[in-house]
């Protein structure tokens, strides 16, 4: 090594050390999301929720600066999620892991959070089992059984239906939705008369909808991932005349997201869905949130991903305040347990036992309000926990 290089290295090291010593301390959050690929829209909406919270609350908590480091998984790839989580912890030295739109991402990174003892905030992935995979995981989104089990009960007790046919996407969340809805429904005296599973990337639903029609059910329960499929399925059902009021249509909230409603038009009227976030919920916090979100995102409305990211950041900020900036996983997860707050979605809290989210489940019906279709809340079930944790 020439003398010049040695001097340069010494100078460089000296500078980096000194700049570290004088700069304000930072808290680094590693955000892992499917920024590219088929789920890019979910990642964008979730990120917009994170950004909005930081814009409203500044980037300084407990005297420390919050810094976000982003990593892309490209989709439901547990191996990629694990690798980027390791990179974030080892190379970028992040203090907190966050994001996780999809269950496989969360499952991939869970081991890393457990080994490195880092708080891991799951902002969407909605399969029950996620929070059991590491003692440092906290979830701020929703679990599929949480919204569907009570929904099944409600459909039989209040919805006035005796028989239903289920049609769900053929992957983990779809199976979860089907089993939890069916469980609630049959426990309350309902009967499932048939069930089908559709391929996850199914372009055309005509065959499945015809099967439903053959069974001539009183009601259909649908679980479908967001994106293009809700509208496609809604229209296929409408083409067969399987729409309310002739046939009752139940589903999880993705089925009637704004773009799907716009695409389905009149035929969407009367569809009843269960969800934890309702865009149209008239509440000062929510109205303010929706307005600010639209201003920051060219008029696009927030969705379930946005609220998961928004509340996830709220949890991180509040936990850091509680620990006075201590970023150790143990301190942060202790601070998060039992935390409760008013979110734009309504009151919510973190279950101290399971570190999972406890919240109000809203049952909504599509109605026309001031000339446009909206999900109007017709029933609220407060303080719902995930029914699967501990139920072995």
């Amino acid at each position, binding site marked *: 090594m020439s003398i010049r290089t040695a001097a340069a290295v010494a100078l460089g090291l000296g500078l980096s050390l000194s700049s570290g010593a004088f700069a304000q301390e930072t808290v680094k959050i590693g955000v892992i999301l499917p920024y590219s*690929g*088929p789920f*890019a*829209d979910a*990642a*964008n909406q979730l990120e917009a929720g994170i950004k909005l919270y930081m814009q409203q609350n500044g980037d300084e908590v407990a005297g420390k600066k919050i810094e976000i480091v982003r990593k892309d998984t490209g989709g439901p790839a547990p191996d990629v999620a694990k690798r980027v989580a390791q990179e974030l912890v080892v190379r970028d030295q992040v203090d907190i892991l966050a994001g996780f739109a999809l269950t496989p991402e969360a499952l991939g990174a869970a081991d890393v959070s457990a080994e490195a003892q880092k708080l891991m905030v799951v902002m969407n992935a909605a399969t029950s089992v996620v929070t059991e995979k590491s003692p440092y995981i906290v979830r701020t989104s929703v679990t599929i059984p949480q919204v569907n089990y009570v929904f099944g009960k409600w459909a039989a007790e209040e919805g006035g239906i005796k028989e239903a046919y289920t049609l769900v996407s053929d992957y983990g969340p779809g199976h979860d939705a089907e089993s939890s809805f069916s469980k609630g429904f049959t426990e309350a005296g309902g009967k499932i008369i048939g069930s*089908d*599973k*559709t*391929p996850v*990337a*199914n*372009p*055309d639903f*005509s*065959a*499945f909808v*015809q*099967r439903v029609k*053959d069974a001539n059910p009183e009601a259909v329960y649908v679980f479908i991932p967001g*994106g*293009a*499929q809700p*509208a*496609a399925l809604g*229209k296929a059902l*409408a*083409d*067969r*005349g399987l729409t309310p009021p002739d046939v009752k249509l139940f589903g999880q909230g993705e089925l009637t997201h704004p*773009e*799907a409603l*716009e*695409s389905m*038009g009149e035929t969407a009227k009367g569809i009843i869905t269960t969800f934890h976030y309702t865009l149209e919920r008239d509440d000062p916090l929510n109205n303010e949130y929706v307005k600010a979100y639209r201003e920051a995102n*060219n008029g*696009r409305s927030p969705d379930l991903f946005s609220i998961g990211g928004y509340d996830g950041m709220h949890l991180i900020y509040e936990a850091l305040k509680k620990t006075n900036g201590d970023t150790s996983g143990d301190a942060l997860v202790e601070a998060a347990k039992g935390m409760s707050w008013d979110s734009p979605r309504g009151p919510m809290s973190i279950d101290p036992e399971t570190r999972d989210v406890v919240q109000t489940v809203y049952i909504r019906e599509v109605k026309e309000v001031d000339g446009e279709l909206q999900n109007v809340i017709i029933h609220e079930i407060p303080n719902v926990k995930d029914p699967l944790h501990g139920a072995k």
Partner: protein
Amino acid sequence: MISQLAIVLFDGFAFGMLLFVLSVGLSVTLGLMNFINLAHGAFGMLGGYVAVTAMRGLGLPFLAALPAAFVAAAAISVLLERTLFRRLYRAGELNQVLFTIGVVFVATAMATYAFGTVQQVIQIPGWLRGSVEVAGLRLGTYRIFIIAVALAVTALLVFGLERTRLGARIRAAVDNQRVAQGLGLDVEKIFAVTFALGSGLAGLGGALAIEIVGLDPSFGFHYLVYVLIVVSVGGLGSVAGSFFGAALLGICDVAGKYFVPEIGSFLIYLLLVGILFVRPLGLFGRR
């Protein structure tokens, strides 16, 4: 039972026709020019976005947005063909595959940048919505429309390639480039026109597809698989092959999902393997 079978056949055929419009252009460019253009689906996506922009931004009616999608996809494809693709006509297949799949990535990124990742929605006119009763069967109006468009496209293509001067030139340029050039045909120009025609059809297919399968930046990748299956089952360079390949694929897909939903989505791949096992060049493949 008979009526259900009829419905399944109809729905399958309609879905097949949508795939046909999306794929036939690739069959033409692949079969006639021996150029492996995996960016074909990206032109479909482009047509979709053009239709959305025309309808929502410019307020054009749906029936005007369809030709706009065709023209825009054709025009942009000529631009790309003149500047990029033509350099690869003599390159190896691997180079063509790598380059054109790269184009799809670029197109996806550009669509994300321009339109965001959100699902695009269009409002088709009221007379295309809902369903009509035909002989006691409820047939989706929009599906009937797709079948009509696909049949019209088929007729035009068959007539154009077999009966017109341009068609004769295209066939001559493909069969023997050197002799065609010797006879004074401008082969380069003919290829550019052929390419534009194929890409324009993809654009039209993309615009037609929005109502049934939606549109977002991953469209170019998502439908590439279906398009390649149609082309390989039908055989290269044959309009009739694409037509029957697509119809068979659509009907098998829908019928499979209807009768054996447990393995329904896998059936088309079985079909593909089975057909290529018996006829490696596809149903109508000649070379």
